[in-house]
Each structure stands twice: as C-alpha cells, then as structure tokens.
C-alpha cells in the first residue's frame, strides 16, 4: 500500500509516529513517510495512525 501525509494539514502532533514508528518520522513539525510502498504487515498500525491523526493528514492508497 502507499501512504501519504498531506503536508498542508500536518502540524507535527506526532500521533502517527507513536502509532507506527516504522512508517512515520516527525521532524521539524512535519511527518514524513519512511517507506514506499509500506508493507501490508504494517496496515493495522497505519490504520491506527490514520484514525488518531488529529488533522486527518494521512491517507492510504493501494498500489
């Protein structure tokens, strides 16, 4: 799966990094996705990040 962070919405609250440290890294108040594609095995953690992100900045797309 492909995971993206909308840089216009993200404010660096780092909930994503707490939920899926293998996938997200927050630096200078902005989250970056560390892997492309993100392995399926990490889907539960990423879905938790999507749910918890206070700014709705994370999206999962297939492919």
């Amino acid at each position, binding site marked *: 799966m492909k995971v993206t962070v909308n840089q*216009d*919405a993200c*404010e*660096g*609250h*780092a909930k994503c990094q707490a939920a899926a440290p293998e996938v997200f890294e927050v630096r*200078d*108040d902005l989250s970056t996705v560390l892997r492309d594609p993100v392995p399926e095995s990490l889907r539960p953690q990423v879905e938790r990040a999507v*749910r*918890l992100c*206070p*700014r*709705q900045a994370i999206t999962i797309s297939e492919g």
Partner: protein
Amino acid sequence: MTQLSPVDIDLSDDSIFERGEAHAAFATLRREAPVHWNPGGERMKGWWDITRFEDVLFVSRHPEIFSSERGITMFEPRDPNEVNPAGAGNGIMLITMDPPKHVKLRRLVNKGFTPRAVNAMEGHIRQITNQVLDDIAKKGSCDFVLDVACQLPLAVICGMMGLQKKDWPLMFELTNKVLGSGDPEYQTDVPEDQRGTPDAARITGQMGVMQMFGFMSQQLEDRKANRRDDLISLLVDSEFEGDKLSDTDILWFCFLLILAGNETTRNGISGGLLALCEHPEERARLQADMSLLPSAVEEMLRWASPVTHMARVALEDTEIRGQKIAKGERVVMWYPSVNRDDAAFQEPNRFDITRSPNDHLAFGIGEHFCLGAGFARLELRVMFEELFRRFPDIRLDGPPERLRSSFIGGIKHLPVAFTPER
C-alpha cells in the same frame, strides 16, 4: 443515580451542569438515544444531541457535510434578526470557518502553536508558574481557581499577545462574561434582581463581546503604529500566498485566542486537581512517580473535558447512526459523554492515570482540532510538577462551585489548604 427518560433530558438546562449531574444524563442518552432530537424552545431552534464517540469522530471529520460557519454552540435563535452573542463572529473566526477558507487561515496562524514553538516556551511557562505559586506560598489556603488555575493560562496567552499586565484582570473578567454569560456571578452589567434570566445572559454575553472587541481594536491600532515582539505584531505583518490578514481577521483571531486560551486551560487545571483529590490512590501513585504525569494529564483532560460541546450545521441531508439528519439541522457534540463511552474506553468511569490507550477527544479532532492543545498540555504538566513539588499536601478545603454553563465545564471556586512554605 436518577433514571431519566431520554425525552426528558434537556441539555440546554445549564443548571444540570452546575449541579454536576450531566454524566447521568449522558449515560442515558448514549444507551437509549445516542442521536437525540431536542426540539428547542420558543426562541431557540432544535438540535441533535450526539453522545457516542464514533459519531463525534464522524461529524468532526466531515467538515464538508457538517459546517461550523453558523456557530459552534447549541444556541441558534429561530428569529434570524435576534442578536445572538453566542453567534458573534460566525463565519469570520477561525473556529467558525469552513474549508477552504479555514485551511488557509489556519496555515497562516499555526506557526506559533506547533510542537517546536510550544517546547521552546517551557522555561517561560515554568517561570510564570512559580511566580503564581510564590503569591500563595505563605498563605496556607486559597481559592485554587482564582489564585492559581486561572493565572497561568491568562499570563501565557496575554503574554503571547503582548498585553500589559494591568490589562490581564480585564481579560479574565471579559472571558467570564462571554463564556460564562449564563452564570449570575458574572452578570454584573445587569441589576441584581434580574440576574439568572435568559435576558441577563444575553446582555452579559453581548457586553463582553463588545468590550473585548473595543479593547482588541485599540491593541491592533497600537501595534500598527509600533511593532513589538508579540503575536499581534506578527499577525499584522504575516502573509500567505501573497495575501495579508485583514484587520477583521486579526481582531477576531485575538478575540478567539483570549477566550479559547484561558478559560479552557483554567478548567483543565482545576478539574485535574479536583479529580486527583477525589481519587487519592491515583494521586499517591502519581506523586510517588512524577514520570507518570504526561499520561495523568491526558486522563485529567478526558475526565474533566473542559469544553462541553461544539456544534455543527448539516449542509446536506445526511445520516448519523442510521438517523436521518436534514439539511440545515444543528448537531451538538458532547465531549464529556464521548470521553466516557464504553465503546471507546475500557472502564470509562474509572480515573486511571496510566490509561493506555487514551484517545480522548477533549481537544476535538480533524479540521478544527484545538490549535492550543500543545500549550494546554504543557501548562498542565508544568503546573502539576511545580504544585506537587512545592505543596505536596495540597487538599480540598470545601466543595467546588461549578459554572452554570452547557458550553464550558467550569469550576468557579475551589477552596484548598496546604502547608505553607517558610
């Protein structure tokens, strides 16, 4: 606990909150009528009470369906010409704007509120906290709300905006008038024998808004003439994609910050101390290991839920939990309720300072997620670190006096006693 039928529950009766009985009403609504229609009254339009966690998540995450522009409190007069102090600034304040306008303004103002900006303030916040505590140190007892809890957030937000210390008490007074307009204690513009009525609330709110606006206009004029090292000066000069902020944008943003930044955090601090005092085992656990504080702060926020509700208006016909919501109808999200929803929290009625996970919605979520959440969390953490370091035996010395409000989960007075410093 008294058993109420959902049809009898009217959450616009703000004495329910003053008496501390709201949780019983919320429990009934969650169980029996999670999407509950309140028909409103002669003057007020009706609204839907939303009390379950998943549903508040859904509403908050769909600003394209659920709009903030017609106001974020439950009150909307049936007569569009009626003055509604609760609707002041609708559509022109950050908190009452919809995307794409909201996205743009938020990007312009959020730089001062990011985690990095907040962390840089820790030393300053600790210094203010200790100054506040110095003032009570020798007394041995005080009103925790007036002498401690309200002082820190007020100093932080007023300091950020560059307001002079002599004006801080006025900001406190006007915040109380606007956000606590329904409470007779703050209805000082109304003759004593007329306090406690809906008209008294309207007048109080209106006076508060007017005075605050007048004050902020003066501040803005001053900064336009002389820039200083403060947020108002920064806003005067800020630019985003070639656009400058208009005077109106700046004034309403300052108005919002004063209100949002001080009353809520005040109640987080007072509500947090009250919760700790009412749960002595949890408190002892915390004081034995202060590294638990960040997680304890989250539990205090869940428990106290300092903001009681935020509202939206449906922009199209839609559905929540199978219930049809018509275009134009108002939905009210009840945060204290969702933060004790057993579908989202295990043993929600247990105060547990190491609760994990603790995904409470005290700061809302999504498009309008609290801009000041980082500041509020830091202020709570530093306050309890310093408070328990200096006054480890601080204890209740009388019952709390709650605010009469369905919007802010407020405590007006909290008598405490402690061993004074020598």
